[in-house]
């Protein structure tokens, strides 16, 4: 059974189509990154998957349960972290988690055990007696993640879990997400615009733009579909120029200079030694040479460029 399925899912708010004909199949296990800029439709997709918003048309399911028809059944197997879902500010962090554990049907003792385990794992234990109103943004995000994990979910739906966090907190939270995904055999659907973090923890991706899924698959297949190739980069001794050098077109594209490095897109990364040899044979003194693989951000940008008619917002997603 697939963890998450969406078939021609559409959501319209008035005249705005937030999600358009989205078809998605996320297998169990691993971390699926739903990538997109603000306004791409990530939150709407997650809200429909957890039953907070009903689709205008189309269907979706989480572990075979329909969130539109039976949201409670979905919530029994699924943990959700949304920026708009706030904890009870007047209660302490521990009281919040105990309530959500018991609301999930856990007996008092089991709830206490689970809450202390999560609070220790997420480094919230020392703050357990503090009212949530006194929590920092990072602590609130951790508490929200703990709430999503409290009933041992099989599927985690996370919407921008690192939004508003500094670099260290964001990094720590992503590490926790991947740790839970591995340890508890949980499928994670991560809605994010942070490409750098997504690449470090996701096993597969879907790229959303203007409410439409423009590409999906693992990094390699997305990279191939987008035509993103590895780059060869060279730095020459004494700041020498490679302007006059014309590489064999079967090896690479023309060389361009950027910050003292000469860069060419390779037809195949196996051609790197031949290109390097060719440069050296032409009498250039190569000080440094490196093979640069495309990042998820490169793939994302290239994918959006290949979908004309959509507003290009790729620059906003550097993570």
């Amino acid at each position, binding site marked *: 059974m697939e963890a998450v399925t969406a078939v021609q899912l559409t959501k319209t708010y008035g005249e705005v189509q937030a999600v358009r004909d989205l078809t998605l199949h996320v297998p169990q296990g691993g971390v699926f990154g739903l990538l997109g800029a603000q306004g791409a439709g990530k939150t*709407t997709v997650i809200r429909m998957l957890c*039953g*907070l918003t009903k689709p205008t048309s189309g269907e979706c399911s989480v572990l075979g349960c329909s969130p539109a028809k039976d949201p*409670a059944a979905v919530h*029994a197997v699924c943990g959700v972290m*949304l920026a708009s879902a706030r*904890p009870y500010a007047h209660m302490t962090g521990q009281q919040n988690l105990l309530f959500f554990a*018991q609301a999930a049907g856990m007996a008092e003792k089991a709830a206490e055990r689970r809450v202390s385990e999560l609070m220790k794992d997420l480094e919230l234990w020392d703050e357990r007696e503090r009212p949530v109103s006194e929590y920092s943004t990072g602590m609130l995000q951790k508490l929200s993640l703990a709430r999503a994990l409290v009933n041992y979910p099989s599927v985690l739906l996370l919407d921008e879990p690192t939004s508003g966090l500094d670099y260290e907190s964001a990094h720590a939270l992503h590490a926790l997400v991947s740790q839970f995904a591995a340890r508890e055999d949980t499928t994670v659907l991560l809605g994010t615009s942070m490409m750098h973090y997504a690449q470090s923890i996701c096993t597969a991706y879907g790229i959303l733009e203007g409410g439409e899924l423009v590409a999906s698959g693992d990094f390699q297949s997305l990279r191939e579909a987008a035509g993103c190739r590895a780059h060869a980069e060279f730095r020459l001794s004494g700041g020498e120029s490679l302007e006059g050098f014309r590489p064999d077109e079967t090896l690479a594209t023309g060389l361009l200079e950027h910050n003292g490095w000469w860069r060419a897109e390779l037809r195949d990364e196996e051609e790197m030694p031949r290109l390097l040899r060719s440069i050296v044979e032409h009498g250039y003194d190569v000080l440094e040479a490196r093979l640069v693989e495309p990042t998820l951000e490169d793939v994302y940008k290239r994918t959006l460029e290949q979908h004309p008619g959509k507003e290009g917002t790729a620059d906003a997603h550097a993570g």
Partner: protein
Amino acid sequence: MLTLAEHALIRKDFLEIWSSKMARATLIAVPIGLVVVVPALFLAAVCLVPLEQAAGIQEMLSLLPPHLQHYNAQQGLFYLLTNTLFPLFFLMVPLMASAVSASCIFAGEKERRTIETLLLTPLRVRQIFRAKLACCLSLSFVTTAISFGAFTIVASVGDIMLGMSFFLNWSWLVIILLLSPGLMVFGAVFMVFAFNRTSSRIESFQTVAYVALPFLLLYIAPFTGLFRVNATVLLLAAAVVWLCDLFLWIYDRRTFLPEKFLNAPLED
């Protein structure tokens, strides 16, 4: 029967109501004022002020039932207060208690945007509705029961001081057994009704004030000589309240839906 999860929600809601200063004040100070302080002050006035010479006292005493026409001015006035004004004050308690607690835990969740988090639990919407109503009603029941106990003491002291028979009569029985529970339910279901139309606790709480108006009229009208509030009139009033409760209950159950109360923005 309520499930473990529903019990957890009720406990959480009790804590939420108790953490609100406005709700605490309403649940403690208002009943004390309405059923202890004000009746005690009236009792003191009846005992201390020479009523025989007061203007209009004879017209007021003419409102006494025929079998109590032998009461003197003090007794007659205290009887009228106990059966016209004090019931009005007392009935405000169940209405206010359930309305305030409902405004805290229904509109409060919406106002603080925690309703969304609650809807992400495996609790069904109907279970949330049921548990929250159970919380409001049980809190209102406890407040009303304690208030009635306190009022009984004050009224009994007055009865003993003025040499009158115990105040409890058919009208009061209808009030305690039918009208008060009806108003408890009404306060809560009306707040749920208002929940979809208001955006804050204060706003939803204000709407309850409009609902209290017909009851004010019910108890003020006898002083105009239009009609007398007796057990039959109160029975009719209770029937109307329970009918409203039933209607609102059915309506609330149908309209208590996530789409109605989630202020879902145009998210990304």
